[in-house]
């Protein structure tokens, strides 16, 4: 029997009971559809979390004080390329809250004192104007860069560059507006001013020795690979400059570690979702086997006729297995289309109190199709072998 004849014969048999074939197909459709949808949701949420964290830069390290305050002297020490070859940029910051006022509009927001390096370290982009420059820091200039949300709250759609605003009663000049960003620690709702201005003009606290204390230092490693090296360099430099002999009085946070933890957790979730969906595919496969067994019994006489006409066992096996594989492959294709449609439809939507993010990758549909064909083979073989084992004489006599 040629492959074409096998295919033709199987299609003939399937078409003889269309409703039953469709119902058997439905089990596979639902199984494959749920595999694709759930896997896409899993992938999508992994992406989302990764995106949120990577918005900060995956080679970003954060140093915060846990005892002695960190100062601009520490920042200078970390900036020495001789001792810290793995560090690309260092950006200290001071955080405070303030009220920004312009004509009739007022908004409460966090005001962060920064240096020019902040732009690079935090991967920021300007919507309009310029960022805070070194002369601003040196002269403790009263200039401000607004986050996009703050700008919109105060100025609507107008370009606020060079406009005057009042922050905690002091007059500041707007030099630029940040481009809107999504992600973890978005600065849309913040205003940035020179770190010296923040320290001397807005912050009440002073430390002895004339040094400027900072709340945290963001350190950008040269690349993702040099993160570990950078951590060591930070620890060495800060222990030296703080003259420490025992425990550190600062803590270094590694963005990559947080990211890894999130990704690991999410990977587990993806596998779990896939397994749950896989069970429904398995149930679909059992449905196929059930239908095929009924079909073998019902078509006993047909099998007898085919055997009398010279069909070998392998011809009968091939016919029934091909039928089962057609069912699961057809169901797989419909399921893939339905799954991709569903996954695309819910992407970015707000449903049942949560935002859904999905990502359909090429491998998921391909795997789902291969699995559905395998399900057809696996659950089709037993009924097919039963059909082929029928005794032709009894099969012909079967009513």
């Amino acid at each position: 029997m040629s492959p074409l004849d096998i295919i033709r014969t199987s299609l003939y048999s399937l078409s003889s009971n269309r409703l039953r074939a469709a119902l058997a197909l439905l089990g596979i459709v639902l199984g494959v559809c749920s595999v694709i949808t759930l896997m896409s949701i899993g992938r999508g949420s992994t992406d989302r979390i990764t995106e949120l964290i990577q918005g900060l830069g995956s080679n970003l390290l954060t140093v915060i004080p846990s005892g002695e305050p960190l100062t601009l002297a520490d920042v200078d020490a970390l900036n020495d390329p001789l001792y810290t070859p793995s560090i690309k940029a260092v950006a200290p910051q001071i955080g405070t809250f303030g009220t920004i006022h312009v004509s009739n509009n007022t908004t409460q927001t966090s005001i962060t004192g920064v240096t020019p390096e902040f732009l690079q370290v935090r991967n920021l982009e300007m919507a309009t104007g310029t960022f805070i420059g070194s002369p601003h820091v040196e002269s403790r200039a009263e200039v401000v860069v607004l986050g996009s949300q703050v700008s919109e709250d105060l100025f609507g759609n107008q370009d606020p560059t060079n406009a005057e605003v009042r922050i905690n009663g002091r007059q500041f000049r707007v030099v630029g507006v940040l481009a809107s960003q999504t992600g973890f620690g978005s600065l849309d709702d913040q205003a940035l001013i020179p770190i010296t201005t923040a320290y001397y003009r807005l912050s009440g606290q002073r430390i002895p020795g004339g040094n400027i204390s900072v709340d945290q230092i963001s350190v950008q490693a040269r690349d993702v690979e040099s993160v570990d090296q950078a951590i060591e360099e930070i620890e060495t430099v800060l222990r030296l400059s703080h003259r420490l002999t025992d425990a550190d009085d600062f803590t270094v946070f590694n963005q990559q570690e947080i990211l890894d933890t999130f990704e690991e957790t999410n990977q587990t979730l993806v596998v779990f979702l896939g397994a749950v969906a896989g069970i429904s595919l398995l149930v679909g496969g059992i449905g196929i086997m059930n239908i095929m067994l009924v079909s073998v019994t019902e078509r006993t006489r047909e099998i007898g006729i085919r055997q009398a006409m010279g069909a070998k066992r392998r011809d009968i096996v091939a016919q029934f297995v091909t039928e089962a594989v057609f069912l699961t492959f057809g169901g797989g294709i419909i399921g893939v289309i339905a799954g991709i449609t569903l996954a695309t439809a819910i992407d970015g939507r707000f449903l049942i109190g949560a935002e859904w993010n999905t990502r359909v990758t090429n491998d998921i549909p391909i795997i789902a199709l291969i699995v559905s064909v395998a399900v057809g083979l696996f659950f089709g073989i037993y009924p097919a072998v039963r059909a082929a084992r029928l005794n032709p004489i009894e099969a012909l006599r079967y009513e």
Partner: protein
Amino acid sequence: MSTTSTKDAPVIQIRDVTKIYEMGDGTIQVRALDGVSLDISDGEYVAIMGASGSGKSTLMNIIGCLDVPTEGTYHIDGQAVESMSNDRLADIRSRKVGFVFQTHNLLPRLTALANVELPMMYGRWPNRRTRAEHALELVNLADRMDHRPTELSGGQQQRVGIARALVKEPSVLLADEPTGNLDTSNTTEILNIISDLNHQNGITVIVVTHERDVAARADRVITLSDGHIISDETRPQATAA
């Protein structure tokens, strides 16, 4: 026709064939055939008669290679069947035996033409369509090729069954009660076609029947009873009729 066999060698050669069925859990043995020997030559028209339970169905199953004897030997076209595997038996069926059934046994959703093509599919024959068309012409169904069995009369269905049996030019056309389900006029028609195939095309025909007038068409009538051949009569004058 069967070019593989020499002129004298019989198409069907059965020697001391015994078939024992075990009933229940092997405690009861039924001897359906008991030491049957039989030769059928190329071009013969043979009727096998007998009451129900006489063993004629068992003999037909063995001749049709659907079953193998418990003891004895059976050669079809010189090939020993008794020791063949299931797949070899299927192969012999697809090439050597053309079955005509009482209940025509056509596949209901296939057209007449596709039904006739069916046995050639398993033998991987070339030019299936042309051969099938030709076979349907032989049984006067050239204008019904695209009809499904349900759209045909009982006699027409049986003619499709005959076309299906003879399409692969079998060594033997094996008809099991071919007119059992037909009325008188259709019976005459079917028997005429079978006679013509035997007389004009030289096809070896074996008809299994319990009806005297069906058997009367044959040149040779073999009667079975209790698993034995009780008579084997050849009537040369029937050839002239």
